[in-house]
């Protein structure tokens, strides 16, 4: 081939690749336009479907950002559009376990391609278009360090002991518990340590430890060992079972059955699944496990679930504007209020139902405000995540000791109100054991039905 032909061939390849890229880009923006914050609201001529953006499966998307004021066809209290505040960015430092579930910024996408904007980012930005919310996902330790430096405006994490340290250090204010679910202990289907269905978590860990010591056993335990919220819970579980976690991680002392991965929850689940011939046991949060399991990426089974020691509570903490400069307190307070509002709580409770046929998180405000009653669960949550003014973890305290509240407004008096008269029941967390059976998980007799309906 002479030079001319070669040049033409290269140019053609470049043009084709650029063309494919541009086509893909145009396709994606046509389906999901970003709701970019604009300084002046645009009144859409067609009536918007509903003033409140409840997560409804609407595959068609509106091309213009929704104004916060209702459009003119429906009666609105303000005859002229109120000017929107100037655009601002909110950075939320969150943990990888929470982020990987997708609740924060991944819309649920069904197999047929319909996108349900049921994630926090889409819903919040639709309601408050001038705020762009970004989630920074790190391990809990790194997330807290990041917020402490002011690189993030608020925290959304699940580690009460570390949250207490953060408040105590004066870095955080206005802690608000928003949701809970349960950790689960998962492992190979063959369960060589025989812990399936045990209710005593400490005894199960002792069984795993003893089984791993016997020569020739293939019992392995995978630990994240990365100071994340999940890891903090795991350390407390081993401690309750009578073992020193630091000693366990010392492979020269213990032999190599205790594997520290140092990676996120998904990667640890993959390691627990694919290592060696059968893999091993690990502690996982529900969301990540379900996400990987329903996609078929792992074949681990849920072996222990729903025990008090496995409770997992998610809270938001805002950076203290008095000690950390340059953070966005107002938008943070708005977001935390949204999380605690009826709409936010419903969104949290509904996330995952489309993809996994069960919710990944249980909203907490209905339980805390008495709209739903479950005394056992409430006691568990308070013993694990409430703080008194010492400050220390204490069931007799509140979600945020009074000295750490700052300009909170009515944040701590929010109660739960359902949209209409739909039945609101708190599901006991239902998890799939992978043969498809839903089981109840609390030991005490449930006071509510086992449904987890929030859709209204």
């Amino acid at each position: 081939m002479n030079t001319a032909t070669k040049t033409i061939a290269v140019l053609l390849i470049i043009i084709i690749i650029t063309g494919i890229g541009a086509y893909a880009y145009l396709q994606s923006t046509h389906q999901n336009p970003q709701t970019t914050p604009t300084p002046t609201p645009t009144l859409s001529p067609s009536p918007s479907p509903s003033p409140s953006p409840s997560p409804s499966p609407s595959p068609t998307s509106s091309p213009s950002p929704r104004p916060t004021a209702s459009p003119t066809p429906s009666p609105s209290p303000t005859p002229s559009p109120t000017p929107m505040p100037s655009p601002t960015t909110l950075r939320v430092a969150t943990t990888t376990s929470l982020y990987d579930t997708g609740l924060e910024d991944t819309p649920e996408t069904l197999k047929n391609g319909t996108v349900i904007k049921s994630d926090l980012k889409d819903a919040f930005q639709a309601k408050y278009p001038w705020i762009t919310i970004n989630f920074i996902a790190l391990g809990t330790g790194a997330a807290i360090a990041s917020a402490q430096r002011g690189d993030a405006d608020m925290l959304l994490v699940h580690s009460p002991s570390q949250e207490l340290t953060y408040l105590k250090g004066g870095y955080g204010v206005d802690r608000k518990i928003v949701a809970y679910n349960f950790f689960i202990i998962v492992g190979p289907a063959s369960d060589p340590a025989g812990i399936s269905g045990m209710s005593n978590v400490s005894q199960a860990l002792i069984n795993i430890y003893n089984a791993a010591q016997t020569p020739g056993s293939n019992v392995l335990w995978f630990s994240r060992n990365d100071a994340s919220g999940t890891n903090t819970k795991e350390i407390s579980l081993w401690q309750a079972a009578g073992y020193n976690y630091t000693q366990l991680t010392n492979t020269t002392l213990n032999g190599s059955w205790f594997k520290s991965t140092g990676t996120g929850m998904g990667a640890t689940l993959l390691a627990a699944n694919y290592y060696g011939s059968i893999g091993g046991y690990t502690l996982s949060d529900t969301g990540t496990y379900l996400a990987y399991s329903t996609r078929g990426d792992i074949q681990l089974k849920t072996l222990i679930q729903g025990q008090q020691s496995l409770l997992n509570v998610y809270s938001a903490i805002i950076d203290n504007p008095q000690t950390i400069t340059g953070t966005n307190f107002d938008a943070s307070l708005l977001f935390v209020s949204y999380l605690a509002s009826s709409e936010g709580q419903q969104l949290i409770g509904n996330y995952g139902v489309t993809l996994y046929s069960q919710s990944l998180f249980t909203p907490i405000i209905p339980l805390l405000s008495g709209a739903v009653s479950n005394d056992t669960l409430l006691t568990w949550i308070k013993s694990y995540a409430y703080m008194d003014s010492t400050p220390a973890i204490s069931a007799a305290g509140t979600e945020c000791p009074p000295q750490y509240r700052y300009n909170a407004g009515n944040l701590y008096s929010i109660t739960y109100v359902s949209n209409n008269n739909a039945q609101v029941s708190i599901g006991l967390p239902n998890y799939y054991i992978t043969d498809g059976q839903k089981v109840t998980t609390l030991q005490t007799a449930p006071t509510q039905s086992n449904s987890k309906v929030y859709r209204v």
Partner: protein
Amino acid sequence: MPDIIVPAIQQAIKLITSGDPEVYATVYRTIYVAGLGTLLSCLWSIPIAVFIGLYNFRGKWVIKGIFNALIGIPTVALGLLLFLLWSRQGEFGSLNLLYTLNGIAIGQAILVTPIIVSFTANALGNADTQLRDLAKTLGASGFRTNLRLIRETFWSMMLSVTAAFNRGFGELGIATIVGGSLAGETRVLTTSIALDLNRGFFDIAMAYGVILMAIVIILALTVSLIEHIKNEDITWKKFSFWKMY
């Protein structure tokens, strides 16, 4: 900037002198996977480079272009591909290469192949064609001619091997995805940095980064020094500068 680097260097010295066996083991593992990966890759890359560099064939420009492009392959993409191939459901799952050091080494061997091929082929292609013709007229066979040319461009090849080693030494994607960063087994320097970043121990993470860079610099300087000595034939006593006085 200095208040980040200086504590990092101090922390790095502390890590090295602490005698912590895990630190030494991590360094050893990193050198092992990068070194084994580079050596393995040389086995098949050098012949490919010789073929591409010294022979003309139709579509040579396409092959060269593709190898040049693959130099920049994202390590996470390659790591993911290997993970899918080597997992239990994958085609090569029976090799049991996941979560092992040898798996990382093979992954890195694949990763650095384009580097060695491209640089070596380039060096060979630029080698003196007159030398080639001379060797041929003096009666050397094709194979021995090529060997002679490889000897001539040896230091360019060493450059490509050094670059390949550095790429493997400092890459994160394959070590994380294929190796899994298991403590005591597959944790290398880069995954240690990522782990300490995730934990929030930024000073220790920077210290590992300093250790990584120090090793890379020492090795590169050593290679460069050897090349310098070989090329200029310096003996330690031969300082004509001193002879002047």
